[in-house]
């Protein structure tokens, strides 16, 4: 029986802009089982990224219940959240967000520096992650020496190096050409299919959505019914 990874009930997020309140998310109910590949789609400003950020523990809901991997993420302190993210969540950004002064190897190693692994064990994990994304021959390259597609693959390696349960991808193909985008989506599909990673991906791209097992639409902060 599949384990529930994300359970959301009546979740809302309201941003305060001067004297106005803007509801980014309204009364969201969502359940995600282990091993699912959820694609969140919707127009700009519909609240996709906000929902992703809240599930990943980098933003907090205004109200509602949120349990991720059985934990009440919204109630955790900042420092506890940081540790929790390091252990359970991998994040892939649209703009890759690699540290420009660190090599591919060092970028991937970053999350492992927060673990108790020895230097040798870290090396093993980093090389395995880079091999999985097909960049084992680029370990000493700096981000500026890599193509966009390669940068995103390094970012995926960084996201999976700690072997997290949950992988979050925010427009992972948004800055890539069609070929590189397909490569990245293939990797995400493989991570879901072969390594049973639970993935939540935000995208505008219908081609990207085809790689997901479930697609949900958001509109004006509301999650539309399944199949809408």
């Amino acid at each position, binding site marked *: 029986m599949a384990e529930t990874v994300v359970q959301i009930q009546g979740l809302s997020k309201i941003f305060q802009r001067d004297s106005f309140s803007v509801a980014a998310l309204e009364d969201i109910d969502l359940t995600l089982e282990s091993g699912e590949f959820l694609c969140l789609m919707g127009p700009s400003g519909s609240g996709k990224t906000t929902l992703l*950020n809240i599930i*990943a523990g*980098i*933003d907090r809901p205004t109200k509602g219940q949120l349990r991720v991997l059985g934990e009440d993420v919204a109630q955790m302190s*900042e*420092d506890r959240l*940081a*540790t929790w*993210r*390091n*252990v359970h969540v991998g*994040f892939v*950004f649209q*703009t890759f*967000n690699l*540290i*420009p*002064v*660190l090599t591919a190897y*060092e970028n991937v190693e*970053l*999350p492992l*520096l*927060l673990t108790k692994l020895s230097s040798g064990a870290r090396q093993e994990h980093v090389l395995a992650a880079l091999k999985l994304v097909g960049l084992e021959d680029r370990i000493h390259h700096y981000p500026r020496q890599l193509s966009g597609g390669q940068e995103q693959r390094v970012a995926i390696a*960084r996201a999976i190096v700690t072997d997290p349960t949950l992988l979050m991808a925010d427009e992972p193909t948004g800055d890539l050409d069609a070929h590189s985008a397909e490569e990245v989506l293939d990797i995400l599909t493989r991570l879901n299919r072969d390594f049973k990673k639970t993935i939540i991906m935000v995208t505008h791209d219908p081609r990207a959505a085809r790689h997901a097992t479930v697609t949900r639409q958001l509109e004006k902060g509301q999650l539309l019914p399944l199949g809408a």
Partner: protein
Amino acid sequence: MAIPIKYNFRNLVVRRTTTLMTALSITLTVTVFVVLMALAQGLQISLSATGQPLNVIIMREGSQSEATSSVTRDSLQVIRYLEGIAKTDKGEPWVSPELIVLINLPRRGQTQGSNVTIRGLGPDGPSLRPEFKMVAGRFFRSGLREVIVSKRISERFQDCGLGDKLKFAKGYWTVVGLFDAGGTAYDSEIWTDSNDLSADFDREAYSSVMVRAIDAGAVTRLSDQISNDRRLHLKPVSEREYYENQTRFAAPIKALGLFIAALMAVGASFAAMNTMYAAVARRTKEIGTLRVVGFSRGSILLSFILESLLIAVLGGLLGCVLALPVNGITTGTTNFATFSEVAFNFRVTPRLLMDGMIFAAFMGLIGGFFPAWRAAHENIVTALRSA
């Protein structure tokens, strides 16, 4: 584990021009700090290094220095036979009646002059000062208007070289030798025979009498005898204490140095702060990413403070290197106890260099803390959205 230091180091290399400019502002501050402290320290060491523990200077009651003191020849006879005075090899009391006069001499390459102490010594005067040694020429002979000049004074004042003739009192005095007094206050003096000097200046009395006590206990006994003898109206003071008291004249230099360094430190700290604020602004998205990956606020704070400290350490090291060449350079100032020139060397000691580095680190810490605080408290979502 904290964010690796190579992250900070490489960021500093990437923006090397800004790093260097900021480091240079700290360099300048540290250089000024070390040089001024080396000046104060040189003066302090020169004065505090002077004095043998068993030597006692006897001066007139109420005198602050030998220059304003007077000891009659009758008093000298009483002093010579006090109990507790050591004997010379010849079996005579180890005593040197001394006369201090100040003359104004022009500095080398300048028309402006400064007061220089001329010390007339008794025959046992040099042996009471074991740090004294001749470095050129020979010792003066009595009755011939001969002087010996300390090497430092010789380098700084006109007509003080070996063989030169100095005009003061009733005629010309020949410089027959140069001496070194081991970095003590005597390195700021010209020496001659006390009788020759008193004759030329028509002085009946001496300025002071220096005696050597047999042992530490005898120093106290001698002091008691002199203080209790109502005829003498003299006060004994240990030679070491006498010069230690004069080290207080280094305090204004030190205070001025600290004041100037503090003013400059404010500027340098702001430069470091400005650089670090710019670094934080430029790397906001990186900070957001590091937080997402799992680094805590504390790690971010530490990382940016460390980066500021790296700039400061670089600046501090350069500052210390720039200040090093002043070590050993001879300079001089007026000793306000004697109103005469005191020549001394800049002393850049390891302790002072350490102080310079601590000072630099302090500037880095102040300059780095607030930008680092901002970085650590950046909202993650806002940070990730930044360009």
